[in-house]
């Protein structure tokens, strides 16, 4: 039985909204509002949601790259919120992050080799010669050549830069990688190469991923389990096959129907959503989705449904299912 690597309990991240000369705190952007889930060793949890749902904030907050407002994050059973600087720094070797924009995720003034090897330098791993060797090894692992180590980011393409982001994350042999929309900014053919790389690395190294994306097709390709996020909360969580075949939540159903299929014969029954995504500063009362839900009922605006397990490994937060 594989152990739970990461457990998130009721995580919240609010960004204060300030007004005026003395920065009065008037409201909060509730980017992440009570999220709970877990990731086991070697598995990929896909986190899907549209822009503004808080998935990026979640990724960063659970790595303590941004300090959480409330909640617990347990890594191998230990609460990371209680750790001091030294423990935190050690932990950085076990969890890494890969970003969306290949352009801004690399320091333009550092060579590729330096960027990849930075982690080794920070943690004092090996001699300079050993670090160089490791950098070359990593470059080859992600499908580039050792000669790229002396290049600068502006000399490489988007796909290559993204590979470097992955190489950098691998440098310290992490157990968990948070991949924040790693392929959204790439062309289709490059996307396929990177997705393959991600899946291969998981098989080779036993990595666990929190794979964040807005494209359900991409999520479906790489994930073992999928969590659907809307306006700061997880509204459905299930095994991939289960979620894709049997979506319970109306939002999930809408998302599924919105995937553009490269098949002109398929006349999908479209679930059209009305209106726009509400502001995370003043989320709707009760179930946050009720303002756009095609199956809204009276109770939806009054009471927030809890994330409840309905079938085996399939939880939903929706009043339709009691």
């Amino acid at each position: 039985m594989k152990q739970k690597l990461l457990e998130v309990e009721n995580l919240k991240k609010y960004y204060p909204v300030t007004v005026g000369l003395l920065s009065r705190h008037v409201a909060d952007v509730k980017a992440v509002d009570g999220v709970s889930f877990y990731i086991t060793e070697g598995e990929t949890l896909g986190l899907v949601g549209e822009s503004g749902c808080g998935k990026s904030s979640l990724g960063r907050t659970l790595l303590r790259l941004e300090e959480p407002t409330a909640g617990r994050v347990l890594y191998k059973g230990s609460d990371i919120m209680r750790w001091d600087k030294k423990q935190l720094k050690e932990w950085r070797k076990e969890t890494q992050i890969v970003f969306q924009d290949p352009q801004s995720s690399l320091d333009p003034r550092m060579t590729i080799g330096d960027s990849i090897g930075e982690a080794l330098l920070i943690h004092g791993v090996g001699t300079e010669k050993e670090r160089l060797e490791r950098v070359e090894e990593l470059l080859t692992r992600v499908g580039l050549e050792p000669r790229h180590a002396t290049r600068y980011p502006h000399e490489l393409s988007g796909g290559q830069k993204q590979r470097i982001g992955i190489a950098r994350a691998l440098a310290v042999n992490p157990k968990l990688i948070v991949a924040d929309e790693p392929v959204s900014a790439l062309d289709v053919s490059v996307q396929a190469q990177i997705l393959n790389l991600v899946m291969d690395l998981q098989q080779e190294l036993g990595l666990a991923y929190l794979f964040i994306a807005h494209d359900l097709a991409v999520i479906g390709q790489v994930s073992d389990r999928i969590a659907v996020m809307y306006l700061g909360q997880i509204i459905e969580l299930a095994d991939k096959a289960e979620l894709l075949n049997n979506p319970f939540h109306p939002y999930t159903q809408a998302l599924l129907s919105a995937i553009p299929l490269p098949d002109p014969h398929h006349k999908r029954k479209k679930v059209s959503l009305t209106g726009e995504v509400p502001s995370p500063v003043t989320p709707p009362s009760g179930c946050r989705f009720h303002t756009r839900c095609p199956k809204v009922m009276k109770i939806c605006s009054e009471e927030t449904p809890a994330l409840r397990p309905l079938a085996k490994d399939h939880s939903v937060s929706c009043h339709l299912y009691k």
Partner: protein
Amino acid sequence: MNNTILQINQLKTYFFTRNGVVKAVDAVSFGLRKGESLCLVGESGCGKTATALSILRLIDSPPGEIVDGEILYRGEDLLRCSSKRLRQIRGNRIAMIFQDPQSSLNPVFNVGDQIMEQVKLHLRLGHQAALEKTVQLMEQVGIPRVRERMKDYPHQFSGGMKQRVMIAAALSCNPEILIADEPTTALDATIKMQILDIFQDLKQKRNTSILFITHDLGTVAGIADRIIVMYGGRIAEVGTVFDIFDQPKHPYTLGLINCLPSISKRGERLTPIPGMIPSLINPPEGCIFYPRCQRHMPICEKQRPKEVAVSGEHTVACYLYS
């Protein structure tokens, strides 16, 4: 059959840069019919945006220049007509929607003013009449609470809303041809669907011809009548949407379709196209896809393949079929 209203013949648009001549559009020919939606598909750097900009002579010159070819709009060559005539056509008969709604709207004017400017210019209406027309247009594209929202500034709108504003502005003069450059790329899946519905509506109710540029094959399957696949500044394949998806002929088209992640391809590795997108400076004598093609033959390297008909309207530029 011959209700072609826009015919492009052997268009060549080159960019003269310090590093060499970039042949962005290298002898491209195709026709657009009344009431059809024609999709230009390809990845970044394939020349599709340059083609679209060339139609309305919007190429930045220097360093770009349309060196050769004809663009016949109802028989009239847009490349050789007077600037005055071109201005009459732009926005009026042929309208364009650009890729990034963020930067296409002027941030210092409110949205209503920007649309009204278009309306007044081309329809020569007085202020009150223009106002009414603008309200009507904005309602047609599904913007809620129009009279209030008209006075808002672009930054107060979400991505999907901004795109609707762009479409409203483009439709103000009921153009015969609408050129849309990646209009849904930056949008979430559910919003994408809504915008595509607007386009479908346009086609059906007003018989507008749409030249839709995108790299997303999934979107294409939903909206296209015919598809042109571009690669390296040249046309690789042309056909109806069913031709292309059911019987893709060009190795690039096949590669593109095969590397799409899909929820039906559970967890299998994708088959990406090996190699990288080519530089358009000094393109080779032969087929530009040659270095990445799995099925190349000696002749592919030497001579550029001409388009040959495979069936009906389905043409390919590939020696495998000639």
